[in-house]
């Protein structure tokens, strides 16, 4: 709805402002500090930026709808890893031996299914037991990680399929495969959340759960659907990334949940639920990736990177608060 989206833009304005700052800073600083003769803002570099934002980005978009819905999902990192293992492992299963390269779509589907199922499990537990999503997914973060190790012990699971790698590394209209997926996911879910009944009901549930129940919204199914979506997206993120890299360590994806949540909140989504902006989340993801890339570009060392990234996150929040600051005469509570 028009005034909804304009509000989105204002609320997530801080993040875009910050992105511009980053670009300027790293271009200037880069000119002095970087060993590279290439400008930071060089087109290829920006295209890479988008591509490199995909793994966290796709998950973060899913996290946005979960948080709008008033929940949270800490298990995405583990889901991501498990889907990756299914993807790479299944391609070597004897049953599919005959398929040749047709094994690829099969493996993709299996991986995505894994994500959906894991998501559904979280969702149904949250719905039926009434245990807080934070706890449910904090626990399944551990449980799903356990399943990851069951699949293949501590060994990495690997299957390099060069056809797949070439597809994943391909560029169409200059954009990498991963970028296309990121953009598609962002647009589709933005549409779902702003235009569909499910999306609006999800907002209502996160905004005032009691009111939603009183109004006869079937809260449970909406919650489950959203968890299935984020499960799917975590798996999709894995599918896109591991199609290229072809090998997964059992502890891959750790801390992804925290980066995703960070991106979401930087994008202006309310942790409490009820209000959120998918577009803003996209900005949040770009901002974080830009920061990593930029610090690498100007050759900052590990201590500095940790220090700076941490403080910058806080700075962005502060900037955001200044932008949305209430007027003097407002109620001060």
């Amino acid at each position, binding site marked *: 709805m028009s005034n909804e989206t304009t509000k989105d833009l204002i609320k997530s304005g801080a993040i875009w402002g910050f992105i511009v700052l980053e670009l300027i800073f790293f271009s200037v600083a880069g000119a002095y500090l*970087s*060993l*590279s*003769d*290439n400008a930071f803002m*060089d087109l*290829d*570099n920006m295209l*890479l930026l988008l*591509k*490199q934002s995909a*793994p*966290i980005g796709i998950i973060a978009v899913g996290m946005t709808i979960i948080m709008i819905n008033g929940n949270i999902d800490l298990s995405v990192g583990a889901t991501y890893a498990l889907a990756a293992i299914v993807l790479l492992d299944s391609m070597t299963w004897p049953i599919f031996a005959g398929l040749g390269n047709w094994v690829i779509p099969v493996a993709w589907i299996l991986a995505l299914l894994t994500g959906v199922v894991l998501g559904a499990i979280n969702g149904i537990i949250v719905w039926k037991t009434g245990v807080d999503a934070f706890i449910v997914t904090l626990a399944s973060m551990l449980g799903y990680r356990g399943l990851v*190790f069951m699949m293949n012990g*501590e*060994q*990495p699971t*690997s299957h*390099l399929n060069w056809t797949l*790698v070439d597809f994943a*590394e391909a560029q169409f209209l200059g954009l990498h495969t991963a970028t296309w997926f990121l953009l598609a996911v962002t647009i589709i879910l933005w549409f779902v959340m702003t235009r569909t009944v499910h999306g609006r009901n999800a907002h209502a549930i996160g905004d005032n759960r009691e009111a939603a129940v009183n109004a006869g919204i079937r809260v449970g199914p909406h919650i489950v659907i959203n968890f299935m979506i984020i499960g799917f997206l975590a798996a999709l993120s894995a599918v896109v*990334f*591991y199609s*290229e*890299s*072809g*090998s*997964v*360590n*059992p*502890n*891959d994806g*750790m*801390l992804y949940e925290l980066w995703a949540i960070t991106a979401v909140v930087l994008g202006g989504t309310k942790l409490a639920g009820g209000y959120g902006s998918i577009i803003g989340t996209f900005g949040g993801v770009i901002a974080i*990736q830009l920061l*990593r*890339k930029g610090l*690498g*570009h100007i*050759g900052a*060392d*590990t201590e500095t*990177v*940790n220090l700076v990234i941490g403080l910058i996150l806080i700075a962005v929040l502060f900037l955001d608060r200044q932008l949305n600051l209430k007027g003097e005469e407002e109620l001060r509570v």
Partner: protein
Amino acid sequence: EAHETYRIGITQNNVGVDSYQTTYESAFIAAAEANPNVEAVVLDAGGDVARQIAQVEDLIQQEVDAIIIWPTNGEAVIPAVRKAFQEDIPVIVTNSNIAEAGFDFVASFSGPDNITQGSRSAEIMCERFTDLGIQDEARVVQISGQPGYTTAIERAQGFEERLPEVCPNVELVETQPGDWNREKSQQVMEAFLVKYDDIDGVYAGDDNMGVGALNAAVAAGREDGITFVGATNFSVGYEAMEAGTYWGSIYQSPVDDAEAALQTAIDVLNGEDVPFLNYFDTPKITQDNMDEFSKPVF
């Protein structure tokens, strides 16, 4: 000769994780600065494959002359490495190798032989048992490194393969990961001590964890009966050996590791032909021969 100075980029596995890797980083930077015609870009993947691949892409994009990589995952980085190869940027792998499938795209590997390290630890353990005359009934527990790290996997593999060859009657009763973390490994050992009345040996994936296990035993007053053997001799391990509570380890210097990696890169850039696998030696160190070694700086 295109450049008077070489631009060399390195992406490290996980600098913060322990003092080995941090010392490696500072040693590498020092070595690079000491060398007038080397400029280094030092990146840390923080243990995250995706981040490491992105860093390789960035290094390619910055058109460095050579890339050194300490893989977070020996297979996953191969396609990234291939990209570098396709851009004619030589890649040197350091500390723990990448998988066979990638060998075509890398110029050389430089680092310790972690499988050999594992088997050497097994030998140290076995020799000690033989001296104590318990080589026929001894029971051993293992505390391995962070699950999924090549280093951890290779050391465990080396130890588990070698032990039965040298001490067929020694029993490896249980293995639990200690995540390269002293406190975690201390907790694991505490549980072992409750569970097993009779533990004669502890093999730890590195000395950080070994000392953690030792602390647990000391707290339970059971350190005397137990032979502690580790790997990557950290200064804590060295001190514990001086104190006589910790038996042996593998001497592996992150400084050698880093300098070897940089040197290999330079040699490659100078067009000298370097062996594909150049391991630097990582000898056994025990209470008996420790005076031959200087105390580790990390």
